[in-house]
């Protein structure tokens, strides 16, 4: 069983939804990333989504764009991100790490080389925003033992969910609104209505993300989804904290969300 699978199996046994915070690797600087990851795990993150900085983050709003720019100022590239994951793995072998980013850094490294290196570093899954199933090389990743996570959106027709399912492993990620990361206006009832269809067509846990900004919303989503992804709100916390209180402030926020989610009756 993969680390992602066993994490979801355990959560299911505990009747809980997964909490998945997102950070950009190298933000605010590369020395802090592994400490942030440990802090997130200690505060109750079940899976960590680690953003790979990219010069042209087309699907991201201003907050995550700025995080990418901060990381790129330090020259953080895909190989550095893998090194960070390997360092995290030295003391944490339980918390799955999913890389989230864009095609070109992986394309540039080569899909096979990347898959091998990612598996070696202890990466569990890869979500490439701009690689839909038609262009995916999921089989190369799964051969290396790395899950391929796909996005589903409100505009995805039901039949297409099956196509995604044929390539997906680990979990699928439902984008809860039309727009880029960090946008507002989440319609919870609308989101909730999509989840059963996706779950039945995919047979995989369904995470929900984009636009989740507080513990109350996270708890509401935890009622019907298998995982809650929080991105821009976490990145804002990093952006607004003095360097030496980043980990403490993140811990406080994630703990709050964790407590609210734990109180949910599912």
């Amino acid at each position: 069983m993969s680390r992602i699978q066993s994490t979801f199996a355990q959560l299911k046994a505990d009747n809980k939804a997964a909490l998945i915070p997102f950070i950009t690797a190298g933000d605010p600087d590369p020395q802090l990333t592994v400490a942030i990851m440990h802090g997130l795990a200690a505060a109750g993150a079940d899976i960590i989504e680690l953003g790979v900085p990219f010069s042209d983050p087309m699907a991201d709003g201003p907050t995550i764009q700025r995080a990418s720019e901060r990381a790129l100022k330090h020259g953080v590239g895909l190989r550095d991100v893998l090194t960070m994951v390997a360092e995290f793995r030295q003391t944490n072998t339980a918390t799955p790490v999913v890389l989230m980013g864009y095609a070109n850094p992986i394309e540039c490294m080569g899909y096979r080389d990347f898959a091998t290196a990612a598996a070696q570093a202890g990466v569990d899954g890869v979500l490439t925003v701009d690689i839909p199933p038609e262009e995916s090389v999921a089989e190369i990743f799964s051969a290396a033992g790395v899950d391929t996570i796909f996005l589903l959106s409100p505009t995805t027709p039901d039949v297409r969910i099956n196509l995604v399912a044929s390539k997906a492993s680990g979990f699928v990620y439902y984008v809860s609104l039309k727009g880029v990361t960090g946008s507002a206006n989440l319609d919870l009832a609308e989101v909730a209505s999509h989840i059963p269809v996706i779950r039945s067509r995919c047979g995989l846990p369904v995470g929900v993300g984009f636009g989740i900004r507080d513990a109350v919303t996270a708890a509401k989503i935890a009622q019907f989804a298998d995982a809650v992804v929080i991105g821009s709100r976490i990145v804002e916390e990093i952006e607004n904290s003095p360097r030496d209180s980043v980990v403490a402030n993140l811990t406080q926020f994630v703990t709050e969300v964790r407590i609210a989610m734990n109180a949910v009756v599912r």
Partner: protein
Amino acid sequence: MRISEFPDAHGHFGQYGGIFVAETLIAALDELRQEYDVARKDPAFMSEFRHELKHYVGRPSPIYHAKRWSEHLGGAQIYLKREDLNHTGAHKINNTIGQALLARRMGKKRVIAETGAGQHGVASATVAARYGMECVVYMGADDVVRQSPNVYRMKLLGATVVPVSSGSKTLKDALNEAMRDWVTNVASTFYILGTAAGPHPYPMLVRDFQSVIGEECLTQMPEMLGRQPDAIIACVGGGSNAIGIFHPYLHEKNVRLIGVEAGGDGVSTGRHAAPLSAGTPGVLHGFRSYLMQDDNGQIAETHSVSAGLDYPGVGPEHAWLKDTGRAEYVAINDDEAMAAFHDLCRFEGIIPALESSHAIAHAVKIAPTMSKDQVLLVNLSGRGDKDINTVAKIAGITL
């Protein structure tokens, strides 16, 4: 497959092209592809397109023999395809009319566009006014400054111009921002992409709409001098004016096709915008093609005196034409383009766009090596009125 039958059903030109976008846009691209499949076979749609090109754009655009200048260069005869004489002053309008007619068919009342030089922005604002649509144009903050006359033209035409201050503040960042708008407003909005790039079906439909350029040349050249040219030269930013004139000639095997990229300070300096000459394959803006990038796959900053060529990628069909050898690609530096700009002004009384000046500069290079009965056809993709501030600044003159 014959060379002109590409792309395949998924938008691939060999290993290039494809659809590399976030899931939210997949349905919109499917809808566009289906609508275009129907429209291109619909005689009413095609006849309206041709009617607009004739009566609104002023097509066919003439081919002009630049005799005095050819004599001065002392070699091949240079003919200019006068896309600069189109309404709005460049080839861009051919494509925006086609896409706006599609938008209208699809019931979209809001159009968005990215622009570099501002020519595509102006052409989009123009058709939006013509068909009564709301228009938002994204433009890199640096380009807003260097192409200010076009910014005002867009505003006069009723468009909203949004300066983009992220990244390198040029065309690629404008494209990122247009994509973000599209993801957010996908139900109401039609994205009028300005060059033969982006996710399928854009490279194909932009090529098809721009192919009117080459199709006219196919009949005009024999009418004028009884034969086809020996070579065709066009500048390549994203590649729309070049593919428009190349595509109808792909099967004319005796006609050399030469694309000219922006060499900036010189390809060897790294400060340029010439992905076909000095880049490597990668994925950006929804498609696979040659890109300018670093060892980490980050997109490199580009440099060109011409805003319309200042782009780190290139349309996928050009990548494929390069690999198959059917077309050749070269780079022309800023100073060579500037010299050609001034030459055309003085020898022929034509002020060319800085983009087009790159194609003209390559003709300057090769015409003298050819005999006097050989013929070069240069795509004069646009007029240079928009560039006079830039040119004056380089000459140290304040207007």
